[in-house]
């Protein structure tokens, strides 16, 4: 029997800044950011595909950079600005990437979409005029099984165009 998981788990109080809102949490130290977002903050827009850092589905932004939330521990992240898919629209006005993804059919089942939107946002913030190769390179860690990637690339180009 694995008794270690049954003992009282160590919990920690910490404050996370997610989508511009500071929230104080009491979480087990071993919980990943992905788990805390989904289970303790009800931010289920962030998805999971492997929980091993292989698929990119759980991508969020940490201080504007795309990171895999399944490989991050919240204890590392106090004082950092975390952005999830729920935080990229302005009120009820969608982000240009969200608009373009909808218009061009870049989301089919939509499960990889939140992670891809955040990787794309991170790219465009550093590089407002990405080439196709820049997009492919920046998104290479995000798998999608539905679209064949084509419409995603087109949507990122369209959004980049509109954001300039």
């Amino acid at each position, binding site marked *: 029997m694995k008794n270690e998981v049954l003992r009282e788990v160590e919990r920690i109080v910490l404050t996370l800044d997610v989508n511009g809102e500071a929230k104080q949490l009491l979480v087990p130290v071993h919980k990943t950011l992905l788990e805390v977002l989904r289970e303790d903050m009800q931010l289920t827009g962030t998805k999971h595909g492997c929980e091993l850092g292989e698929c990119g589905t759980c991508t969020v932004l940490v201080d504007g950079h795309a990171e895999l939330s399944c490989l991050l521990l919240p204890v590392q992240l106090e004082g950092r600005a975390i952005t999830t898919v729920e935080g990229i629209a302005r009120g009820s006005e969608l982000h240009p990437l969200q608009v373009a993804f*909808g218009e061009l059919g870049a989301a089919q089942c939509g499960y990889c979409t939140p992670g891809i939107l955040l990787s794309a946002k991170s790219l465009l913030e550093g590089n407002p005029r990405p080439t196709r190769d820049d997009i492919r390179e920046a998104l290479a860690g995000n798998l999608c099984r539905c679209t064949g990637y084509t419409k995603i690339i087109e949507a990122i180009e369209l959004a980049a165009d509109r954001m300039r």
Partner: protein
Amino acid sequence: MKVVGKPLPKVDAAAKVTGRALYADDIALPRTLHCKILRSPHPHARILSIDTSAARRMPGVLAVITGADLPIKFGILPVTQDERALEHEKVRYVGDPIAAVAATEEEVAAAACDAISVEYEVLEPVMSIDAALAPAKDEPIQDYGGPNNIHKLVALEFGDVDGGFARADHVREDVFFFQGNTHLPMEQHSAIATYVDGKVTLWSSTQVVHYVHRALARVLELPMHRIRVIGAAHGGGFGGKTDPFAHEIIVCKLAMLTGRPVKCTLTREEVFYAHRGRHPVLMWVRTGVTGNGRITAMHFRSALDGGAYGSYGVASTFYTGALQTVTYDIPAYRFEGCRVFTNKPPCGPKRGHGTPQPRFAIELHLEKIARDLGLDPVNMKRRNFVQPYTRTVNWLRVTSCGLEECTERVIKASRFHERERRAGHGMGFAISSYLSGAGTAIYWNDMPHSEVQIKVDRGGVTVYCGAMDIGQGSDSVLATIVAEELGLQPTDVRLVTADTDTTPIDLGSYSSRVTFMAGNAALEAARKMRAMLAEAVEARGHEFGEVAFEEACVLAEARFGTLTSAGSYTPPKIAGPYKGSGVGPSPAYSYSACVVDLDADARTGLIAVNKVWIAHDVGRAINPLLVEGQVEGSVYMGLGEALMEEQTFRKGLHKWPSMLEYKSPTFLDVPEIETFIVETNDPEGPYGAKEAGQGPLLPVPPALSSAVYDALGVWIDEIPVTPEKVIEALRRKEKGEEPRYGPQRFPTVPYPPTIKVEPPPGAANAATASI
């Protein structure tokens, strides 16, 4: 047309891009318990005992169940009810479920699974087609089928095959192998169940709520009206969520025992064990042709490595032989198929279900025949194209067929015949066809395959249908058709779908059936509603469309009372008069043609695909944006299968049950894809529409392999086409051996006596005459 044919965004686009769509694992209900499943570490073993006492004593554990709690067997096909939600007698693959725990925390459930002790008597695993055909060392995997580990055998002959070969100027035989691969949906399977007031409710990531509903009723021994199955937002299926699964039954049983909601989300490793993916298929084909390449007869044999259970396997077996005649006009055809059991996760339907493998074999085989005869392969294939509005020798009814136009488009756009030759560069061409929905249901019945209800109230339109949107856009198709008929926009239409309590039946998202079947049901319901609205408006001296929709609704409700309408769709009864004829018929077939352009490096064997041109006869594009998305996604998945994806095993273990090691194409691997939508307006499709989601995958692997031959002069007769195989084939070529990598032989299979089927009247006559 106001909305049909327009590239409008999907009706659920906003939910998908905001993270608002609720997938099964996103559903959080108060007091939810977490479920973990103990799975077999052995590929083949008898279970001697299961001791759950330690697990039951652990704090936080509320229930532990084993096969004794769910003894009734189930399976997607009525003829192969061979699975249990939990096995307590025997395990048949690494990953076979044995026991399940419901606990307050996921970690506690996992620890409780570790605390269950199982005593096994390990049996010799059977891991290949050859091993399955030989007598079992210990015992067969299943207690049905046979001889040895054979699951299913079939032998059919249509027309005079021996005569066809006798008439041929040239006869060629080849052997091919298509390795198995898996769907790899981004979303792991997940299910959550409640049990309230004697009624089970299940939310699941499934493609087929109706078939899950049926399996639950059987195993839980509850009437169907006490079970409700709801399709949650769906994170990718590709055929992989088309069986009823153990975890779906388990969470219902645990909810019944504990009275609390129970959720189970598979880990990525477990998704590889759930599988039901592409069958590995070994194929032998012999074809006779005239001097100008016209086919006189074909004999095709397949051997499918089925894994441990039946799943859709009987249908998959027939599908390896059924559609050959729907692409090429084959005047005489013999098919012998065999599926074997092995100690691996069960194979089932993956995009194209049983047809990409023979497509690969047939296309390469015809390429070789053309070269034997010194003919241009494209022109020789064209000479054999099936013609629209004909019946094939195996009784399949072909209606609209855009093969010629599809071919014209890709050959012209790719400059296939005008290109300049350079070392290492190659192009390959292939065609395909696929069903717009299986013409027969999984279980025999005379009821409609799809039903739609429409309610109009205070200007609001709600459409009810059991169809499950798995990302392909079936909700958008329903909304678009209803909007078109009622003069609205798709976003004006509310949808209630995939819920067995509130929606009328649709058989689900498999066999590319939804646009055709649910689309026709929606069209019928919408036209009835429009007729009511129009009658009420006309009674006031106006034309429908002249008054505001809201006003028309008021007039119609005042005239008729509650405004509801219904439509349903039953496919035509067109199956041939022979056993096995239920697999293959479809109300319409889609057609595709594809050209792959690549560079192959003779030093490393690496293949860089430069571009893919693909034309798809979708009948009529109800939404061209979504059709393009389906075509591009199919090409992507076809390239993944052609170049890298394989589900393989070593010593009974899956070699790579992870997303890193199971190679699939990334953003960096997918070339430019140029899509041409060809419209042939099928007479029976809604507005002429046919399927788009599966057919365009099929021509990609053979076109790629042909392009490798074009580039390097070596045949890779095996999927995937990996650098190792290319290098080995080049080495053989250098040594003066056959410039080829692929299987050397087809095993001896004890096929039953061939059932000879008289071709339908008129079939193949035209073909025979033109030879």
